[in-house]
């Protein structure tokens, strides 16, 4: 039957044409198309993995930031504490020093007063002695101007002196 009898002409043309088309399409169409598809898939794949990596990186950075922040906070607290301690110390020492100075000055003053007092006493004593002597001299002069009184006094002394 004619329908199922392949004609030589069509076989010939079909073979030639199909092989040429196969060659041309393979070289100039399928190769660039498949290459482009592969490249695009690879780029999508790498973009996705890069995004994933970036996400992880950001998470890492965030954690690090938090850690840094916590560390900074700790550091700040420590510095503050140290500063207040130092301040306290300073005040304390200043106070102490002032106290000491005050005490020293008071002691000095007291010593000075004591010295003055002593000097004043000595002077007073000397003055009193002089005055007493002068008084006694005055009295004695007055008393002994009378010979009878001189007699009485001598008598008195003699009585007082007990010869034993």
């Amino acid at each position: 039957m004619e329908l199922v009898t392949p004609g030589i002409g069509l076989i010939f043309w079909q073979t030639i044409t199909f092989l040429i088309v196969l060659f041309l399409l393979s070289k100039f169409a399928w190769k660039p198309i498949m290459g482009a598809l592969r490249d695009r898939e690879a780029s999508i794949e790498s973009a996705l993995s890069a995004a994933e990596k970036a996400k992880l990186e950001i998470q890492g950075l965030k954690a690090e930031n938090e850690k840094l922040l916590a560390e900074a906070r700790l550091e700040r607290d420590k510095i503050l504490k140290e500063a207040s301690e130092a301040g306290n110390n300073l005040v304390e020492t200043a106070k102490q020093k002032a106290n000491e100075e005050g005490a020293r000055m008071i002691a000095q003053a007291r010593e000075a007063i004591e010295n003055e007092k002593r000097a004043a006493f000595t002077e007073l004593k000397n003055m009193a002695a002089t005055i007493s002597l002068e008084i006694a001299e005055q009295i004695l002069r007055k008393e002994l101007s009378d010979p009878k009184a001189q007699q009485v006094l001598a008598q008195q002394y003699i009585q007082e002196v007990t010869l034993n």
Partner: protein
Amino acid sequence: MKRLFVLLFSFLTISAAAEAPVEGGEFKPGDMIMHHIADDYNWHFADGATLYLPVILLDNGSLNVFSSRNFYNDNHELVPYNGYKVDHGHISRVDAAGQPLADQSGLLDFSITKNVASLFLSVALLLIIFFTIAGRYKSNQGKAPTGIQSFFEPIIIFVRDEIAKGNIGPKYERYMPYLLTVFFFIWFNNLLGLMPGGTNLTGNIAVTLVLATITLLITVFSGNKGYWKHIFATPGVPVWLSPIMIPVELIGIITKPFSLMIRLFANITAGHIIVLSLFSLIFIFQHIAVAPISVAFAIFMFFLELLVALLQAYIFTLLSAMYFGGAVEEHDHVGDLGHGDGHH
């Protein structure tokens, strides 16, 4: 795309109806249909619009090239020319009286027939479309596909991922050019065959024979050790069965592409015959009332044919990929080389 298909089928109904007119004598649907699906030396689009194609004859080494116009007189009747005449659709040597000679040996017909012209047309279309797309991939590098590129890209990816990768395995890449070419070649020609004035190229056994032969050659030449071992020493089969098994396996090599050849040819030809038969009903009953029913059925068949056009391209490509897959498969186990065209 949808609008295009609607346009196509509206043309087809017109053209098929136009081809059916009863020229004088009795209307013979069989002759009309056979004439329609067979090859011809001219391309008859409509009455008055006929393209006469070149005839190329190799007669015992001497080349004869002339227009097929010479075979027809002004009344479109066949006449002898230069000792040749178209007889039952083929060119034969004839005597002076126009009777074919008994001796036709050494006469080879390489004419650019309707089918060959259609083949060139479809191939030009394929090249233009896919070169354009390839150009788009270059100019559009790394960007989303646009226009025609985005229409074909999913199809190309489907052929790669569903047909090639799934059936051939890791070595799929080297078969991609053939699979893509054969898929689009069959699909385009199936669709072109449905166009008004289109030819029945993929429903021609010579075309399917060539395609199936290429599949066979690729399969045989890419067959690895495991493939040949399965043929000459099928694992699990006793040696004394070899005299039966080896011929059976060898025949199996041929029957697979043979089934490819017949399947494509029969499906496409049958589709054309059915649509034409439905239109013939109008002329057989010679009543206008039959027309709506005929047309309704023909429209249904046409949409079915659009599906078949894609389906047959898919099946041919899929089965080719399976045969390649069987040839390059690493057989570590008692294998299943006999898989393949179980379905359809």
